[in-house]
């Protein structure tokens, strides 16, 4: 693949895919960008007009925007911390030989295959419901007052639900990384006088750094756009307590019929995602050059 001829052939054969992908991404992006500079309300068809950056001004000064920004960061950060910590714990457990390990490994992966809408509904109605839910039943069984999760701690509850969905992914990646750790390295550390805690801190964690970076990167991309879980459980409420940027854009465009404002929000979200991506790429660059 080094001659001028083969490079030209490579470019030629690649171009249809590149053109298709570019069109696929660029056309919606360009349209969103265009809409974001228009007054475009679905209740006033035919009255679209150019209003410059007014949509951005409204969106960025809306108190709901700051609430949503905070919620988005809390959601992404909370889920990342919980899935990585939980994933490491589960991976360490699953790496040991025990009876029925095959079955347990299979079960651990199961939540990943449940679609977000369904798992959120199950959590809302069967587990967290203050009247019929399992947690309420347990609380009552213990003589305690049932806790209304989605009303009292809505954001934490959503973080819990999303964590439950992403824990298998983190566990799987971390378990694979753990299995690639040379057992002689652990034995060497053991002979060097490192106890279980020292081995975890000095040998296992550094070995998992790369996998943790991968988990962080991939999950962040998906966690920035969590939507179904919020729509199904709290509708972004109470107030804006569980509204993230994605949900705010949805609310703006389709609940308030303000497509222009929603588009401006979408563009803001794209910019934010890119800022996060730059940070992550830096982090990965540092972590991957071992």
């Amino acid at each position: 693949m080094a001659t001028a001829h083969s490079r030209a052939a490579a470019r030629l054969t690649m171009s249809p895919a590149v053109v298709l992908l570019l069109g696929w991404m660029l056309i919606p992006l360009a349209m969103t960008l265009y809409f974001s500079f228009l007054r475009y309300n679905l209740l006033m068809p035919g009255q679209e007009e150019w209003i410059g950056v007014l949509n951005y001004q409204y969106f960025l000064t809306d108190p709901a925007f700051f609430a949503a920004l905070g919620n988005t960061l809390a959601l992404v950060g909370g889920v990342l911390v919980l899935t990585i910590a939980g994933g490491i714990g589960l991976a360490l457990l699953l790496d040991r030989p025990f009876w029925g390990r095959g079955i347990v490994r299979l079960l651990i992966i199961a939540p990943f295959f449940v679609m977000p809408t369904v798992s959120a509904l199950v959590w809302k109605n069967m587990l967290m419901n203050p009247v019929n839910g399992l947690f309420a039943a347990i609380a009552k069984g213990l003589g305690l007052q049932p806790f209304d999760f989605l009303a009292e701690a809505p954001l934490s509850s959503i973080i819990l639900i999303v964590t439950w969905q992403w824990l298998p992914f983190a566990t799987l990646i971390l378990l694979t990384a753990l299995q690639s750790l040379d057992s002689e390295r652990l034995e060497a550390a053991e002979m060097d006088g490192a106890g279980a805690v020292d081995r975890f801190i000095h040998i296992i964690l550094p070995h998992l750094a790369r996998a943790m970076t991968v988990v962080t990167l991939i999950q962040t991309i998906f966690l920035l756009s969590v939507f179904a879980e919020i729509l199904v459980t709290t509708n972004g409420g109470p107030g804006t307590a569980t509204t993230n940027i994605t949900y705010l854009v949805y609310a703006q465009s389709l609940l308030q019929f303000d497509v222009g404002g929603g588009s401006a929000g979408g563009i803001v979200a794209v910019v934010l995602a890119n800022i996060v991506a730059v940070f992550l790429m830096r982090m990965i660059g540092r972590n991957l050059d071992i």
Partner: protein
Amino acid sequence: MGQITLDRVTKSFGDIAVIPPLDLTIGNGEFVVFVGPSGCGKSTLLRLIAGLEDVSSGSIRIDGKDATALPPAQRGLAMVFQSYALYPHMTVRNNIAFPLKMARLDKAAIDRKVEAAAKVLNLTSYLDRRPGQLSGGQRQRVAIGRAIVREPTAFLFDEPLSNLDAALRVNMRLEISELHASLGTTMIYVTHDQVEAMTMADKIVVLNAGRIEQVGSPIDLYSRPRNRFVAGFIGSPRMNFIEGEAARGDGADCIGIRPEHLALSTESGRWSGTVTVSEHLGSDTFVYVQVEGIGTLVARAGGEFPVHHGDRVWLTPQTEKLHRFDAQGNAVSSAAPGVKVA
């Protein structure tokens, strides 16, 4: 100090007995080599001594104290692994310092010891590199450095040179021997390479399927092998074994003669045959001779011996260097009473 005693030690994995009951004493300051074919249990035995595996029965004593149930870190032994088992995310300095940090030594003492070890091993200019940026021989030295800073009562090496190329292997062999001479610490060294065993050991332990076949000094094993296994394993090229009619003439079921104890002649001798292959190394010539009724024998001639494929040659064994074995393969009336120890 560094005396290690194994008493009726056994090891089984599930119902496979890898080490049948085994007794062994390793003296203070000795360089002991465990040698045997792949899969014979050398690593297992070493790991039992290190404490990385639990014995199935029997006991291990280190310096007179019962160490059978002690965890590895408390046995005062240091091990160099075949894969080196360096910590890839740490610099060479931190790799070597790791056991000292785990012993919670203060920083000044750690630095002093690491610098000293690096100096002995010629690693001073590499202290701030990562293991991934070192050559195989340098990694090996880092692994040794990590072992010596702990000042252990004994070193354990598990085939430490098998990942190096031939020239480097000879070099490292010398360095490890020198290290042993200067530290005077007990070393247990595992290898499947009899040349390493012969060149480095004070005492060789020949293992076969977990059993000790013979223990002795290199020259002991070379000149007085207790059985056919040891006779065939020690020495290169390996000893020629002759069975049947020719052996019975010498009053044994099987006789063995080393290539260097077979005199080659182009005129006369006890056995005659045709040359199949001749290897001319300059310093030696190894000649593979097809002998009627006996099979292929290898003979060594010092210097150049000008024969080639198809030539007729005669072979004569030095009778005092003949080894005789019974039907079970055990040596009978040990080869020659007055073997000269070279």
